[in-house]
């Protein structure tokens, strides 16, 4: 695999549905970085990340994951990537361990390594006592944690999460944040969209703000503050200044 400074490089990305969802987007996320992608509803965040994950075809543009052209060699790109959506998609009739065995099988992880990782992950996420219980009776938080464990069991280099904390209780949200922080410390790259600005403020090294399919601001929290000319303001104030009331209404 070619060594690359960037975990993700997006150039001139365009995707139109009834109207442009992503409109000439350029974005670079460094390897080993925790990157938060913010924006009002309909800004193009999810569409962008679904294109990166190989779930949508763009109309135009380039997507590179660790130097791999994700549009030309999607299988290679997918092998280092994990996708977690806001609605955990797991199988009700499988247990968490069986789910992780299935995911590990899809990514071709050695069975012994996968089993050891699976037990470790379920322990971290406090799902150990439920490892052999079918997921059908699980709460939203438990399901999201199973989905997250699935994303981590094949040890991806890039984790993309679309609103992973939606609907989680405080305890579950803290566990998810802790696991993600540990992954970044271990060298993994995390890209996350969230409407919970406090999470982005506390966890992300860099923040990108997207509106109408374009990246309108990017940088660390300090850089964004300087750019807004408000040194003590919160991310929420900066965000609202950037996107404006009309975009929020959209």
């Amino acid at each position, binding site marked *: 695999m070619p060594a690359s400074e960037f975990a993700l490089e997006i150039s001139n990305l365009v995707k139109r549905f009834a109207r442009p969802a992503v409109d000439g987007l350029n974005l670079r996320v460094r390897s080993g970085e925790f990157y938060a992608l913010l924006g009002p509803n309909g800004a193009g965040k999810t569409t962008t990340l679904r294109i990166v*994950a*190989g*779930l*949508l*075809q763009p109309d135009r543009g380039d997507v590179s994951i660790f130097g791999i052209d*994700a*549009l030309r060699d*999607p*299988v*290679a790109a*997918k*092998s280092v*990537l*994990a*996708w977690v*959506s806001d609605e955990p*998609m*797991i*199988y*009700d*009739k*499988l*247990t968490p*361990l*069986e789910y992780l*065995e*299935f*995911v*590990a*099988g*899809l*990514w*071709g992880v*050695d*069975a*012994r390594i*996968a*089993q050891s990782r*699976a037990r470790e992950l379920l322990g971290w996420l406090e799902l150990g006592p439920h*490892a*052999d*219980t*079918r997921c*059908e*009776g699980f709460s939203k938080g438990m399901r999201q944690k199973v989905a997250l464990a*699935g994303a981590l069991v094949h040890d991806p280099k890039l984790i993309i999460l679309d609103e992973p904390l939606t609907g989680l209780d405080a305890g579950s949200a803290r566990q998810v944040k802790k696991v993600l922080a540990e992954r970044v410390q271990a060298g993994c790259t995390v890209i996350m969209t969230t409407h919970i600005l406090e999470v982005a403020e506390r966890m992300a090294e860099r923040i990108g703000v997207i509106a109408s399919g374009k990246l309108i601001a990017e940088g660390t929290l300090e850089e964004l503050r300087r750019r807004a000319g408000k040194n003590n303001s919160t991310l929420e104030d900066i965000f609202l200044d950037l996107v404006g009331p009309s975009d929020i209404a959209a």
Partner: protein
Amino acid sequence: MNKAVWFARHELRLAMREVMWMLSAGKPRRQKIALVLLLLLAAFLHFVAWAIVAPYAKVTFPPDRTTLVVITGSAFLGWTVMISQAMESVTRAFYTRADLDLLLSSPAPTRLIFVLRVGAIGITTSLLALILIGPFINALAYAGGLHWLSAYGVLFAMSATAAALAVGMTILLFRTIGPRRTRFVAQVVAAIVGAVFVIGVQAISIFAYGSLSRFDALHSSLVMQHMPDLDSPFWLPARAAMGDIPALVLVMGLGFSFFALAVSVASRRFGEFAVAAAGAGAGNVRQRAKRKFRGGSAAAALRRKEWTLLIRDPWLVSQSMMQILYLIPPALLLWRNYGSDNGNLVVLAPVLVMAAGQLAGGLAWLAISGEDAPDLVSTAPIKTHAVIRAKTEAVIGSVAIVLAPIVAAIATASLWIAFITSVGIVVAAASSTTIQLFFRAQAKRSNFRRRQTSSRIATFAEAFSSIGWAAAAGLTAAGSLLAIPAGALAVLVLALARLLRPKDTALRA
């Protein structure tokens, strides 16, 4: 406005929209087309009904025992289907939370809600019966006289008793096995109750005449010997259907009284049962502790996953395996004629091939459109065609496992017929799976029962392809060259399905 009338209007509006949604697959522009197709279907059913019943429409009075047996048997067949439909609806009335939480938390009396909902079930059961049985009544009335129109009264009474019986059985299940198990058991009972009578009658035909015809069973001496005397009240529904007015009044009176009694008794505890159903949830099912992860390819992981999900969902198994129940009569035929006549074995080839096509269509829908984690599979480093191949293998493997014992039994009697049947099974299953691939649309597995609404073209293509391959297999087994046009027809159906498939937003890889 009276609260009951207001609520009835609300329920009627919801029911009408549900019917239109099912007819048009949720696309308002298709509503007019769906209505035209419905009218064409009604005309076609009248044509079929005329061909079947016109020769028997002119009956002498008083009717003889054979006439009474045939009418009673046919009515009972329809009634079992009505009970099946009503049980499915009653289960949904208790377990579908859509608006039940809102209604039960409102000051509206729960008894009123229940009475109207069960009333609606009675009406929808009648409507379904009207679509299927109405053409036969009309054909009888046209060919034999207007007295046959009184059969409509019997039909409404049968619908009322079917709804009442469904309510009674569901409440009984609630009390005996509890709300968690009731849902599954009631749905399985609903699925098989109609089939059991059909299969039973066919079994009598096979043993009495060595034939699959249900009418042969109703004419059999075995049935005739065990039927009551001509003046027995058992024949009241048949007499009422033929225009005996006192009998009609009695049948309708009894039917609606039974309905009123069941609703009155059950409605007192509706709120209690609905709350219990809400609290039943999915429960915590523990599997045996997993000791070792299994290795293998991504395709192997996909196949294992499909089989595990299928085995662990008894409701889906009961729904998709309904076709298997209909294999019991041909299996009995095989058993009865074993070693005596290869001519009867030829009949089995098309039956098994048809069943394979239909079974594969259902399983393929579950594996392809009913994928619960499509994003997970799509983001895995495995090419789309490899995913499709693994799922197809899982489907055809399941069909093969189910049908292999019958084919093996045929092989001991005729290797040629077993070979043709095996080839037909694989080709029909592969064709149905291909059609499901052409028309795949993401849906929840729980929508399996309504999968036909997502694409009528897929439903018809699947049916015609299975019929084509079944005919080709049967004719090949019989040594007829007509197998070639039958096979060509099936290929043409596949080609047309490919041509009409929706333009897919193909995934990468």
